[in-house]
Each structure stands twice: as C-alpha cells, then as structure tokens.
C-alpha cells in the first residue's frame, strides 16, 4: 500500500513545476517525433500558412511543424537571445529586420543546393536581404479609399498630399508605432515628392501641410475601423488587406497603386543558424509555385515564384513587384532611427 500524503503531493508538484520551468517537458515531448517550429502572423495569415505550407510539408516529411504566432521583432529577439539553440527554425521577417539578422550572422545563406525552388525566385529578391533569406510574398503600400465618398480618388502621392492639405477629405496614415511606417510612408512619400533616403524633408513638409486633416492608425485593423466608421475617407494602406476587406463584404473599399509606385513591403523567409536542417524542406515548400498560388489566393498578396499563375480574381489586383517602388532596405536601416526621432519631435504620434 502506498500512502498519498500532503508531503508527497507537494513533492510531486515541485518536481513537475521544476520540470516545466526548465523546459524538461517540451524536450521530452520533442524526443518522440521529429518536429520543427515555424512562424506566422495571426489571423488569416496563420490559416494560410497552415494550409499552404505546413500541410504539404507534413505530408511529404511525416514530421510536424508547430506554428509560433507573433511578429518579426519578437522572433528575432528570441533568436538573438539563444543563437546556439534557436527556439524557432524558420523566421518570417520584414526585410529590414531580415538584414539585421543577416548582419548579425544569425541566419544561414540561401542556396539552390539547399532550396531547389530558390531557382524560380528572382535574384533581386534574395540579394535584397544579403542572400541570407529571400522575399516570398509582398504587399504594396498604396492608396485605399472609400469609393462611395471619394468618387475621384487621388492617383498619385502628389495629388494625395495636395487634396488632403486642402481639406478635401480626411486621410488615415500609419502612425510611427507601426513597424513598417518608415518604409511604406516616410520613404515612399519622400521619394515620390522628390526626396529619398538622404532627404526626407519633402515628407515632413507634406505632413505639416496635411496635419489638420490626418488621423493615424496604429494597427491595420484600426485603419479599417476608421474607414468603416467614416472617420477617414482615404488612406495609405496595403493592397492585400484592402482586398481581404472587400471579399469580406466591404465592397465600398478600393485600392490603387500611386503613379509614383507604392512601396514594396516584402515578407522574407530565413533560417536561423543552428536551426533544424529540416527547416530547409519547409522553406522549399514556401517557395513552391503551387503552394504560393494557393497562398496568394487566400491572402490577396503577390508572391514571387516566377512560375506562379494567379487566379482570375487576383489578376486585376496584384501589382507586379517590378511596378512597385523597391525600398533600399539597407540604406533605410541606417537612418531609420533618426527618422523615427524626427517624427516624434515634429509629428508626435
């Protein structure tokens, strides 16, 4: 007979707690089947990743891909904290952070030997992240508008600034708390207005002119709330998200790529050094043409494999990446903090 006393229960609890604290249980579980941890943004992104990349990977390898939800700054911080044993095996990154990871030598080189499907991805998109990753999906930061209240939308950034300054409509633009704002707004508008990485004065001058007719969005859903509640009529936003809202029933919303070219907002995939080699197989699935077609159909975003044939629905929606303004990510990364500081002092939110 075995007596179950308070002391034995407390003792067992302590051992279990210590096991959980030291990560003993996950390791124990991991020893039973081959598993990797991949990354995805939340919401429809997660669904698309599971359907288009995780499912074929698991079918082909018999291994399991656990999906870690979050955002690039968080994942990069996790890899930085433990580069010898990275907690994620595949990184989904914004190009500027992908470059940070590449510079810090935290990620592996991408080669056709490891990734046969890389041969079908334009070289520029791999070069843009120093060859240590590649862009597999992209959105365009352009002009989204309510076609019921704005029958003649601004066709260019120039016209956008001019008409918002005159108070013709209220515009919603991303706030500086949104990670991509330095690229999709500051750089894109500065370039369109005659400046560039070395001169963002035209952007800040434009913002000063528009300030009485601007509202700011801190997160993408915030923009849609502002548009649907009538707080804003027009704004700087992504094509894919606009079409997602349209497909969900907001048929009053529309998007156009400004004449100067909206900024390309790419999503790069990378493999941390010391990550499970099985990650290469998963990344190869990400770069596969058929998987990307399915992904594009769900996400309404452009993809980069040259063999991809978009569905009829997407043909009129996707802007070829060559017609976007391709951001010089490396140069932007050097001055980004100065831009943020200037925004804080001059615009303030």
């Amino acid at each position, binding site marked *: 007979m075995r007596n179950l006393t308070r002391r034995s229960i407390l003792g067992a609890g302590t051992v279990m707690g210590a096991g959980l604290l030291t990560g003993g249980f996950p390791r124990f579980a991991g020893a039973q089947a081959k598993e990797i941890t991949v990354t995805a943004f939340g919401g429809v992104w997660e669904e698309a990743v599971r359907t288009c990349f995780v499912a074929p990977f698991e079918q082909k390898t018999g291994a399991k891909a656990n999906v870690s939800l979050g955002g690039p700054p968080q994942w990069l911080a996790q890899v930085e904290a433990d580069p010898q044993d990275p907690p994620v095996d595949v990184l989904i990154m914004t190009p500027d952070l992908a470059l940070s990871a590449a510079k810090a030598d935290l990620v592996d080189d991408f080669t056709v030997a490891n990734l046969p499907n890389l041969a079908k991805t334009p070289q520029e998109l791999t070069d843009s992240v120093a060859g240590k990753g590649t862009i597999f999906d992209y959105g365009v930061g352009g002009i989204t508008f309510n076609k019921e209240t704005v029958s003649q939308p601004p066709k260019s950034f120039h016209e956008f600034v001019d008409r918002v300054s005159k108070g013709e409509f209220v515009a919603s633009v991303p706030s500086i708390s949104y990670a991509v704002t330095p690229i999709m707004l500051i750089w894109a508008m500065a370039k369109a207005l005659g400046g560039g990485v070395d001169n963002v004065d035209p952007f800040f001058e434009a913002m000063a002119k528009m300030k009485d007719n601007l509202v700011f969005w801190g997160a993408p859903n915030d923009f849609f709330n502002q548009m649907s509640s009538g707080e804003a009529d027009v704004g700087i936003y992504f094509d894919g998200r606009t079409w997602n809202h349209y497909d969900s029933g907001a048929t009053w919303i529309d998007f156009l790529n400004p004449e100067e070219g909206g900024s390309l907002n790419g999503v790069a995939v990378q493999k941390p050094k010391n990550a499970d080699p099985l990650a290469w197989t998963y990344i190869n699935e990400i770069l596969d043409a058929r998987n990307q077609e399915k992904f594009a159909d769900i996400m309404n975003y452009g993809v980069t494999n040259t063999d991809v044939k978009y569905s009829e629905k997407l043909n009129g929606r996707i802007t070829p990446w060559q017609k976007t303004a391709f951001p010089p990510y490396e140069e932007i990364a050097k001055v980004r*903090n100065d831009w943020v500081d200037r925004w*804080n002092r001059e615009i303030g939110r």
Partner: protein
Amino acid sequence: MTEFTLPIAPRRRARPLAMRSVYLIAPAALFLLFFFVLPLADNAMRSFVDEATGAFTLARYAALLTDPFYLRIMGETVLLSAGVTVISLIIGYPVAYFLVRKAGRWSALVIFLLIAPLLTSIIMRTFGWQVLFARKGLVNNLLVNQLGLLEQPLRLTNSVEITIAALVHVLVPLMVLSITSVLQGIDRRLEESAQILGANRLRTFWEVTLPLSLDGIGTGAILVFMIANGSFVTLVLLGGGLQTLPLMIYQQFNTTRDFGMASAMSMILLVIAIACLWLQLRIVRRRGA
C-alpha cells in the same frame, strides 16, 4: 495492484510560526523572483550597457533626463495619469456615496452596471469610442443631421479629451469600489453626532465623512494612477496626439529595436510610478486616514 488511500496524517508537533510562514510565502516569493525580480534586474542591467562595446554607460539616462523632448514626454505621462485619477475621483465618489447611502435594494444592480464595462475586452470598448465619436459616428450624426446644430461634424476622435474619457470609463469602477468599501465601514452615528452638535450636512460630509473615507480614496487613486501610468492599448488606438512613456517603449522595441533605450525608459517609468505611489501614501497618511 497499488492501492491509494488518503489516511489522516498524524498530528505532528507544530513548527514555529515564522518557519511555517516561510513555507506559505515560498511559492509566491519564488514566482516573483523568477518572473519579476530577475527580469527587472536584467532590464536594469541592459539599460546601463552599451550594446556596441559592452561598456557601462549612463548616456541613455543622460539623454532621457536632460533632453526637453523626453522631459515633456515624462511630464505628459504623469499629467495624464494624474488627470485621469482626479476625474475618476470626481465621478467616482458621488457614485460610491449613492451606492452606500441611497441605492438600497438597487445597490446590486448599480454594482453590476458599474463593473459591466470591465466584462468586455478593452479593445472592444476602445473601438466603441471610435464608433460613437467618429466624424460620421452617432454623436456627430445627431448634432449635424438629426438636430441640425452644426454644419460640419466635429473632430472628436484622436483627441486628448476622448483618450482621457476612454481611460476614465475603464478605470472609474476601480475608484468607486475602493471608496464604497470604506464608506460602508463608516459608523453612521459619527455623522449623526456631528449633526446633533449643529453641523449642517455639507459640514458633516466635509469634516467627518470625507476624512474617514480618505483610505478608500487613497487606494482608488493609487490603483487608477498606476494603471493609467502604464496604459497602452487605449493610447495606441485613440492616440489623441499624446506621447507617453509606454508608447515610446513600444516604439523602441517595435520600430527602432533600441532595447537599451526601451529598458532605460521602462526603469524611469517604474521610478515615476514608485515616487507617485510614495507621494500619494504620504498625502493620505498626513490627512489622518
């Protein structure tokens, strides 16, 4: 087959009280040590280390404490929290007084109505403010189209006023509940004695009820101030042009990835919170609560 029984444990000789107390607080102490004290210490260390060279530096604190821009942000953070606390008190005290002295059998309903907003997500509540006060929202629609009082809709969202109103909406129940619990404990005979001795109702309230409820005001003020001091979601969504330390910390992490600066800012936010807590406790104690 192993048989499990749960016998009554033999009564053991009582351990000294201090020893038993150590066992009782050990889980909480360990939890705080691992998930609060050690991360906080790591955060503090990070704020003093130059990431490029690994050398000790005070540069971040020097920038934060001498640059007028950052000083203004700290001022806005404290002013916002203090403003929300004062408004919550002004709104909350009469509600608490009504609840204890007048609501009678309706008190349960009043308490439910009071805490009902806390049952929904803060994001939903904040979006609710946008829907109500948007340029083409309910309020502007009423003023412009239904009542014809205005020709153009007012710009109500993205303003400091709406941000404060949204924070007060979330935090005023905490103030009310803190004051209510203290008001319930006040002996009504003390107030009656004051009135028998000639004090009118206002003087009775001012010289008897209010001083006796200072403890509740202090608790409510500390709760509201602390939460407002670290509030983030409401400020991100409603903004209103306010720049506060929590927003700047998020920006340092999310946009610039300057973790050292974010750590220094968070340490300063912590010091501000502790200083304000100490000040409020001193004021409440000095008033005799």
